[in-house]
């Protein structure tokens, strides 16, 4: 038996950076695979719209590389345009994936919005910006931190994806690790197989028990393979990545407990290293009880 999380929606949030088509598409695809709704939050940070109120403020425009005075009307117009572009992209992705889509505009600081809105039945999409400046500068770091601190499952999309097909890997630290059920559900919908990486205290690299045995994981009709890895492989992302070598996975599902609770950089670094999205399930340490239920 494994813990199954009853997901309700996939939540993709956009702040003022340029909307990422690939991220929206992947979010819609995930919603389709899990058969849940797709919800888009367009976050309008009041701090941003208030920038023009500072005396003599100006912005450095990337396009044209010049300084331009901050005008409140123009800023509002650009924020509005951004919201419309996001909505167009979102609607198109939802239509193509055949999922129910809902679009919301939220007026709140980015961190605040992500800390308060998602529930444990949500999957929050975090798409790493292509631009290093966007990754380093506000509000993306705040967005990531808030997402990892929220109750929601986090789907972290690295800026470069190297594979779009292959097995779904579940890194299971226990027999009833929620990652197994989630990985199985995704694999079943995508027509892929599942590889369960069982974290043990024994020797690493040993083959796992045959299907349906060993860890006692129910895998349904999805082809499932198993590998065992020593717990020390979780000590750093390079070791963990090495454990997945040769699997050519399309996605990694793992529990939040795999990484240190206070290190939000590790999941993103792991996703970047593997070049595939990472789905972080479970609540952060110290969180309230999840809506997880027991699967038969």
């Amino acid at each position, binding site marked *: 038996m494994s813990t199954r999380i009853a997901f309700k929606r996939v939540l993709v949030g956009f702040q003022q950076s340029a909307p990422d088509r690939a991220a929206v598409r992947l979010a819609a695809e995930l919603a389709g695979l899990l058969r849940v709704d797709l919800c888009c939050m367009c976050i309008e940070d009041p701090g941003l719209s208030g920038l023009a109120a500072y005396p003599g403020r100006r912005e450095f425009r*990337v396009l044209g590389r010049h300084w331009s005075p901050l005008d409140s009307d123009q800023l509002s117009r650009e924020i509005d345009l951004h919201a419309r572009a996001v909505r167009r992209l979102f609607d198109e992705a939802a239509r193509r994936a055949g999922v129910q889509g809902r679009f919301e505009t939220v007026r709140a600081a980015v961190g605040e919005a992500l800390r308060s809105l998602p529930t444990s039945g949500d999957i929050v999409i975090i798409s790493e910006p292509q631009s290093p400046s966007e*990754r380093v500068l506000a509000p993306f770091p705040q967005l990531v931190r808030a997402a990892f601190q929220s109750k929601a499952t986090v789907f972290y999309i690295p800026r470069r994806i190297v594979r779009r097909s292959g097995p779904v890997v579940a890194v299971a630290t226990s027999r009833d690790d929620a990652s197994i059920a989630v990985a199985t559900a995704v694999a079943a919908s995508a027509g892929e197989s599942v590889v369960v990486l069982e974290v043990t205290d024994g020797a690493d690299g040993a083959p796992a028990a045959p299907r349906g045995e060993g860890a006692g994981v129910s895998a349904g009709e999805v082809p499932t393979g198993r590998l065992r890895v020593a717990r020390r492989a979780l000590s750093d992302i390079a070791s963990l990545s090495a454990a997945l070598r040769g699997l050519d996975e399309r996605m990694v599902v793992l529990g939040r407990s795999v990484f240190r609770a206070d290190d939000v950089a590790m999941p993103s670094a792991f996703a970047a290293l593997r070049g595939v999205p990472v789905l972080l399930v479970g609540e952060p340490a110290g969180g309230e009880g999840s809506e997880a239920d027991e699967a038969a």
Partner: protein
Amino acid sequence: MANNPAERHEETAGEAAPLDPDRLYRAADPAGLGFETTADLEPIDGLIGQQRALDAITVGTGVPRQGFNLFAIGHTGALTRRAVESVLNDAAADRPAPSDWVYVNNFKEPHRPIAIDLPAGRAPDFRDAMRELVDELKTALPAVFQSEEYQTRRGAIDEAFQKKQAEAFSELQKRAQEHNIVVMRTPMGFALVPSRDGEPIPPPEFNALPEEQREAIQKTIAELEKDLEHIVHQIPGWDKERRDELRRVNEETAQIAIAQPIEEVRRRLADLPRVLEHVEAVRADLVENIAAFVVAGTQAEAGDSGGSSGGDSGGETLPGGPFDRYQVNVLVSQQDCDGCAPVIEELHPTLPNLTGRIEHLARQGALVTNFRLIKPGALHRANGGYLLLDARSVLTEPFSWTALKRALRSRQIVIEDPSRLVGTSSTISLDPDPIPLDLKVVLFGDRTLYYMLAAADPELSEHFKIVADFEDDFDRSAETEALLARFIASILRRESMKPMDADGVALVLEHASRVADNAGKLTLEVDQLRDLLAEADFWAQKAGRDTIARADVRKALDQWIWRSSRVRDRLQEQIIDKVSLIDTQGARVGQINGLSVMSLGGFAFGRPTRITCQVRPGAGKVIDIEREVELGGPLHSKGVLILSGFLAGRFALDAPMSLSASLVFEQSYGGVDGDSASSAELYVLLSALAELPIRQDLAVTGSVNQLGDVQAIGGVNEKIEGFFDICRERGLTGTQGVMIPASNVRHLMLRDDVVEACREGRFAVYPIARIEQGISLLTGRPAGERGPDGNFPEGSVYAAVEARLQAFADIRRSFGREGGTGQGTTS
């Protein structure tokens, strides 16, 4: 027949007498053919009676020089063409199979595709090798570029770039934080604002700060802005370094990835230097354009076909795909041939069908093309062999004739776009490499067309030096009848018809003489015979016979006449009903039955026409009314003018001709041409002058010269039958008949009913050699011969004519005298 000198004498001298019925039709002897049915005969392949044309073809196919192409003229129907094709196939067997030709992409100048020739049959191998290469690379390259090794290298490059930027921005952010400034991302760029605990200070709070503090913050922000600007300006340079490094890694990876598949292609086609040259060009281009494979591979994995409009998804690649540039367009291949040169017939020689064409695909509203859309024309397919064309078709297709001549002169095939030639082209096209041309062209056409073309186009003789002039007929003898019988057997067998018995074949042979319009010839219009055989086969089938009998052939002939004779029947009906006035008995001055032939849709029939003449004193002019109203052709006018010459040479030798005569074809409302009625016109003129009535139960055909010799005409059988039909309808009297030139006797192949009527003495055919014979028969008086006293005998036709002419001269002289006194008028 008239080949006997004694018979010839009979026909050219003395009084006209009815022709022996045996000479009205030359029957074939079934027993003499020596078989029961055509199944007993050995078939003949190829042509019969065409030695002259065959010799020409031999020369045309054998001389390996420019311009020695063939122009086959005559009745070159389908069977003849097939026979010529058979001869050419034999010649083609002795020629080596020509090269295969392919078009490949020109990577340097894509609008000029490269033509490559390969040994016969190798083009498909080249095409398959390249297709397999592309297929393999479509799988292998994405795999290589998704491999961990590559991704690690690429990731390292990206990471270095990202790290450089991230460090710069982190440093900026750090410095900013030290001064309680936050760098924010705006929709269009970056902005720096004062902060507290990492969050922007609300503007009212900031504005409430002391001025010195605000100025200090502004100063700090200004310095940080410079740093930010500096970083942003560095990014393009870093990015270029990243791209260069990435390109180098990509090229290295691609070189390694494609080396093995390319080497396999090289090994497979190692004996083809030009192909190897192209393969190297492909290798270089692949390295430059590896992204197309990686993107396609990624899309394929994602199941995304949107946007990929090409046809590279299947095993058989269709044009228009992203990998077209590496494919091979096999223009012509001898793979499926038996090692011989090709013999190609192009039935629709439009310019594109002749020289090839460049097709286009619609892409987002625009027409685009590439080398894969080059399609071969007949010249490509026949290159190295023989091309058969119908001359009329070539000449009636715009641009085709000139394009053919250009190709033959330049000895290369240039694909020409008709829309460009007329200046209406509005889309991108190609300028493919011309392909060297080495072939023999055989044009088929009728003689008129050839002679007209030869007169109008001086280049004809430059390009078509050999004329194969096909005979229309050949001499009829026992041997040639047997030969044609075997040919008939060949047609029947080849076309899966029933065999024909000897009686049936005899009738076909007789019909062959009738078609030849000559009892001593057999036609070589084999297509016409083939049509007859096909229809006879049909009637035999209807009659439930296993072999085609004479009755079936007769039925086929009768049915053909029945189907074609509606107009003839209507015209005859008008004569019977006396709407068209033709007398078939009695006698009348200045009126005679002439005969003409009408040909409608391949069916010819004779028709009697009343010719009348009026005479009066005048200036010696015979007026051709047909000519005056522009209904008479030049040959007809010539015939009428000859009459004046005849009269001038025979009568009124010592005085100017003082005659004015008018001749007319009564109830003729269409054009009249030919001189076959000139003897009839002379008879009627003599009748009018002599005031002697002419027999109306006779009809006349034949031309005449100034000396009074009656000359041969065409359509003699149809003319006799035309008058016979009218007489038969009205009831044959036994005196009726037709006067024909004696020299036409050899052409007689009359219908059974006409022959039978003649045999029974109810109708007659009179061979006439001299006008004197004819006028004597028509008037019942001797023509007369000038005696030693210079006069014609009393009571003769000519004596009466001369007397009348003398009277006209006297009248004219008397008018002349009156005119001299100023009292009369001139004529």
